[in-house]
Structures are given as C-alpha cells and as structure tokens.
C-alpha cells in the first residue's frame, strides 16, 4: 500500500509540475530573469504548493503516526551552516544555467527528452560524487 501511495504521489507531483509550467525550463528561466521579460507565474506555484502542504504538515504534527503506520521521517537537522548555504548556492547556479531542478528533470526524462536524460545522468554523477566525498571525509563511518 505504501508503494502504491508513493507511486500515486509521484504521479500527482509530476502532473502538477507539467500543469504549472515548472516542467518547462524556458518558463523557469523566464521566472528567474528578473531583469528581462519577467514571468511571475512560478510564484503562484509556490503559493499553491505551500498553501496545501502547510495544512498537511499541521495535520501530520497532530498525529502520532502516519495513516499507514510506521513513523514520521521528518528532517531532524536544524543547524544553519556553510554546508547548507554553499550547497544551496551551487544548486541555484545549476538551476539557473539549465532551468531544471530535480523533479522537472525526471518528468522530462519520462517524456524522453534527451537533454533531460543528459541532465539527470550528470545530476546522478554529482550525487555519487557527494557520497564518495562524504565517505572519504569520514572513513569507517559505514
């Protein structure tokens, strides 16, 4: 059941990305181009997505466990450090270069867009590099 819910959530998430325009890098870049012909549409995506999620996380906070059991796996980290800020800046530069963030890139792979396939391959390489660097930094931690 959890697996079916995960698939359905991924599907609805992906449909939302397509309907909202987030799945189109040229639209994303239009939003990020404040000094050009700015397209504010994606601010509305944030409002819609955060509005619904805000209610959901409030409801989740009142429950002892999720509906399907198990526990809540919510991020525990609270520290605001250079890793968080520099990592996010590096992500933002990549996002601004291509107009893709991870979700929309995966949706575009589903539409067999070859540039999206190349993007996701490079993204996976970046994530593997992170794992490798983390293991090198903390040997024996695993």
């Amino acid at each position, binding site marked *: 059941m959890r697996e079916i819910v995960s698939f359905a959530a991924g599907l609805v998430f992906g449909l939302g990305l397509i309907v909202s325009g987030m799945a189109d890098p040229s639209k994303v870049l239009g939003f990020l181009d404040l000094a050009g012909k700015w397209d504010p549409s994606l601010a509305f995506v944030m409002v819609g997505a955060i509005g619904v999620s805000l209610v959901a996380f409030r409801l989740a906070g009142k429950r002892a466990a*999720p509906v399907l059991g198990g526990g809540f796996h919510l991020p525990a980290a609270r520290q605001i450090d250079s890793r968080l800020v520099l990592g996010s800046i590096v992500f933002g530069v990549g996002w601004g270069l291509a107009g893709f963030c991870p979700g929309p890139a995966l949706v575009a792979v589903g539409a067999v867009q070859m540039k999206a396939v190349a993007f996701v391959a490079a993204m996976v390489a970046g994530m593997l590099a992170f794992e490798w660097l983390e293991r090198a930094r903390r040997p024996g931690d695993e």
Partner: protein
Amino acid sequence: MDLENFTPWASLFGGVAIGTAAAMLVLLTGRIAGVSGIIGGLFKPVRGDIAWRVLFVAGLFAAPTVYQLLKPFPVPTIEATHAVIALAGLLVGVGTRYGAGCTSGHGVCGLARLSPRSLVATLSFMIAGFATVFAVRHLVH
C-alpha cells in the same frame, strides 16, 4: 513583465497538485516529498527504504504519459547546450546533497513546515538562480 506567457491560474492549480502530492506522502506514509532527497537515498541504500523511492520516481516518469491521455504534452524548451546541461546537472546533484534539499524539499515542504533552515536554503538557491540567469542573459550575451 511578460504578460504573454503569464499563467497564474494554471500555475496555482499545478502548485495545488504538487502540495496535494506532498500531503498524501506525509499524511499516509510519513515521508517528505523532496525529490533530491528521495533520489539521494538510493545511493546510500537502507533495507526496506528503497521501493517507495523508486516508485515515487516512477510516478514522475509516468506523468507525461498520463497527461497525454487528457491533453497534448507541452514539449519543454531546453535552450542550454549539452555542455551547459552536463555542468548544470553536476552542480544540481552536488549542491542539493550538500544543501540537503531542492525546490521541493526545502522550497515547498520545508517552508510549509516553517523550518528556518529551509528558508535560508530557499533564499540561497533562489538568489543564486536569479544571479546566474542575470549573468548569463544580461552580462555574457
């Protein structure tokens, strides 16, 4: 402002769908709909923690096909060259793992949880995104 391509209603509605997906995932399974974290977890596999990640990604992959049952899929315009795409993908991969989240994990779920950490992350990648597009479109070209 670009009023020709401005789509407030479609974007708001799509955003509501994204929020609904995040709501389903957290209320039913207790998980955060953060795409970079969901993929990243596959590279540090833990038993019993893999199938849901693969299926969430499968759902994303299936979205264009399902969308096409109702309406023609709007083919994305990807302006960047292959070299820029590869560099961008690498930066997004490394950056989202060090920053522990992307547009969905920090920008949607984190902000909805009122997490100060996610607010800092979101401001950081938004400002970097604005600055990068400004540099590419208005300084280099």
